Structures are given as structure tokens and as C-alpha cells.
């Protein structure tokens, strides 16, 4: 299934969505503090976790990701006051839909990390990578992965 020979452990590919103000800076903090953590997460910076459209997550899974991390400021600390609560509500509903699609809840994770919590961010990622490694590769059927349609605007047909 994967290209990896059986002797090598499975290395999950994880897409991580971080917010500009807290969790991305936590990752920065982990970096400049030279903390060591699993390299499996590809971080994508959003302005806010509230910007996370579930479409991004679905596209990540359809495109071959084994897991998705969503990360933002601690509840109450959002730079845009309450948007991380929106992310939380969305995340809970999205996880239910993904479960019905056969994507285990363990493949998505919601993580709060402030700009000062580089160590927590690094530890949680290492933990998440190990959890996903136990779940194994997702191997979403890539031949079935659709091409995102090109939008062609059209005049409305009037009856």
C-alpha cells in the first residue's frame, strides 16, 4: 500500500492548521528554542482557527493526509475575541461526519496552544504522531480523488 518497506515504521503525513497569533507562534517558539519533535506535521498558517473551513480538512484527507491537526488560541484568548469557539463547534460536527465516512476520530485533533507554549505544542504533536502511527495509513482511494471543478460564472436563465 505505502512505498515504505516493511522494515521502516509507517510515517504518517499530518496536515496542521495553526492560527497566526497563538499556535503558529507556539510552533515558532518550539523552533527557536531548538526543541525536538516529530517532523510529520506540515503546518499551514491561517489568520485564525475560525478561518478553518471544513473543506480544507476534507481536501487534505482526499489528497492523501493520514491525519489533520487544528490548532488555535486557548478558549477566551482569541485575537478576534470568539472565533476559536466557532472553530470548536465546527470541529465537533466535522468529526461526527468524518466518523460516518470511516475516518476515525483519532485522525483529527483540536489543540489549544498559546504563543508561549512551544513545549506543549511540541509534546502534543509528538503524541499525536504516535497515536496516528498506531491507527496506520488512511490510504484514501486516490484514484477516486476528484479534480476541484473550475468555476465558470454564468448568467441566470430567466423563465
Amino acid at each position: 500500500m505505502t512505498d515504505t518497506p516493511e522494515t521502516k515504521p509507517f510515517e504518517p503525513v499530518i496536515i496542521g492548521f495553526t492560527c497566526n497569533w497563538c499556535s503558529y507562534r507556539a510552533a515558532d517558539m518550539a523552533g527557536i528554542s531548538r526543541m525536538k519533535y516529530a517532523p510529520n506535521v506540515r503546518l499551514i498558517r491561517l489568520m485564525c482557527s475560525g478561518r478553518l473551513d471544513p473543506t480544507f480538512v476534507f481536501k487534505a484527507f482526499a489528497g492523501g493526509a493520514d491525519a489533520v491537526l487544528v490548532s488555535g488560541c486557548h478558549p477566551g484568548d482569541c485575537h478576534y475575541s470568539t472565533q476559536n469557539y466557532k472553530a470548536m463547534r465546527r470541529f465537533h460536527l466535522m468529526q461526527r461526519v468524518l466518523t460516518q465516512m470511516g475516518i476515525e476520530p483519532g485522525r483529527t485533533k483540536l489543540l489549544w496552544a498559546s504563543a508561549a507554549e512551544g513545549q506543549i505544542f511540541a509534546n502534543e504533536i509528538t503524541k499525536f504522531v504516535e497515536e496516528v502511527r498506531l491507527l496506520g495509513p488512511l490510504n484514501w482511494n486516490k484514484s477516486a480523488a476528484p479534480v476541484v471543478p473550475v468555476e465558470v460564472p454564468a448568467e441566470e436563465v430567466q423563465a
Partner: protein
Amino acid sequence: MSKPKFAMYWAASCGGCEIAVLNIHEKILDVDAAFDVVFWPVAMDAKYADVEKMEDGEITLCLFNGGMRNDENEHIARLLRKKSKIMVSFGSCACEGCIPGLANFSSIRDVVDTAFSTITTDNPDNIRPQTSYTMPEGIITIPTLNPVLKTLDQVVDVDYYMPGCPPESHQIAAVVDLVIAALNGKAELPPKGATIGAGNSTVCDECPRTRNVKVIKEFGRIQLMHADPTLCLLEQGIPCNGPATRSGCNARCPSAGAQCIGCYGPAEGVVDYGARLISAFASVIDSDKPEEIDRILDGLVDPAGQFYRFNLAGSLLRASKAAQKG
């Protein structure tokens, strides 16, 4: 000069699209006046061999409804694509899978078991149809099921999309008028890949109900509630798919007191219909506490079924893990 040729075909669908076409009433006479109907299995007798004998591009307009459930569907889709100038993905099944596409939640084995071995089926020996069987006279075959249902544009190139389950008759009439006008050089056809016979906005835009940006503590089912007839259904906790659904039906269901179920498919700019609805539904939840959010979400009995009722085969994920495994 001979008239331009018209074809209509049904793959995995219910036949409602054909009825919707006949529902354009006397306009069907315009269709007959403007076109030679050369292939339309539900309405006239014609054989696949007749289509095979045609020149490539000989059919001017082909309305193709139905999803790709088996290899016969795919074969005819490819054949009609080759023989048609304008191929319209007609109706929700062809565009996005629709109700037959809900089978993509289950493995094909479960789908067949449900059809042949449930309590409503008298099949004590658990007999299954064989795709190929040798008789004394020779081998007889039936089409082979695809493990997952595909949409038309996942199999062939499509010129236009016409959504709806079924497309509203007034929209079909408008499209027929447009194509006839274009054939007479009096109008221009929209660019390839466009959605025709529908609006560019959402059902909410056409909905007469009032929105007050209210949030809710509970999702309910419409048959168990007394819904206010003038207020937004979603803001009353009733799962309504209007926020992500393409306009074009004049908000028929919400106007009549029922929630939108999403038959017109994703609105302009919506890549994944269900993902857009997750955002919309989550936005009316009135809670900041994870436990309470979960309790409120328990009121949505089948979220994936709610969000992908018409759209599963056309969504980003296309089919559940179970369906992919077969």
C-alpha cells in the same frame, strides 16, 4: 435541411427527470418542432445499435440523467458523449450522485445484501444475480456493478450542468428556449462547464422566511415541532440545507413549510457541499462548552446523511472507507 437531433438517457436514476421534461407541457411541442428525437428510451423505441451507427457529433443536444452505477451506464455515457455536440449533465444524479449515490456510504456487498437478503425479500437460498451465466444457447450477461457510484463528469467530459431533483420544469423550459434560440443564431450559449437552468446564489436568497441571527440550544425534527411559518427554519433548530444549496427552485420547500434538503446541489463557489453545511449548522449552536455542544449535536441524528443526501458521489471524499474497501 434536417432538424437538429435530440437524445435523452437515464442511467442510475428514478425516471423523475423524464417526467420533469414532460412537465414542460405544451413546450414539448416546441422541442418536437425544433428537434428530431432520435434516442430516448423512456419515451420511444430505439436501440443502442442505432446510436452506434450515428456519426460522431451527430446528436446536437443530449440530456443525460443518472449516475454511473454499472458498466452499462458508463458505456452509454461514453457512446453518447462521442455522438453528441452538447452533453448536459441533467439532474442531481448525473451531477452529484443524488439518492443512488448514498450507496457510497456502504460497501457494495452490503448494498447487494440489502437488495436481496432483507426481511422484505423472499430469497431463502440467498441467490445472487450472476453477471455472466452459461446457457445451452450461449452465455448471457448483465451489467457489472461499480464498487462506488460515480457522477457523469467523473467518467466523461460534460458541457453543461443542470442541477435539481428533478430540475424544475420552468427551468427546463427556459433552457430549451435558450438552446433553440442559440441554434437559430438569436442567442449565445453559456461558456462550457457552466451550470444552466439554476441561480448563482443560495436557496436562502430566495427564501421568504426572516432571519434574525438567532442561535439555538437544540436541534429538532420538523415533524415533531411547531415551526413558526415566517422565521428561518435553521434558526429554529430545524436542519435546513438552504445555506449551501444552489438557488433556482424559488425556495419551494421552505415556502411550503418544509426544510430544504439540498436537491439543487452546491451553490456557486461551494467546493464541498457538506463542508459548507458543517460551517452553517455549527454557526447556530449557542454554546461555548464542548460537552454542551456535543449534547446539542446529538439532535442531528445522521449528520453525514443530512449533509450529503444528494451530494456524496460528487463530494471531495466521494465515498466512505467501507465503500472503498468494497
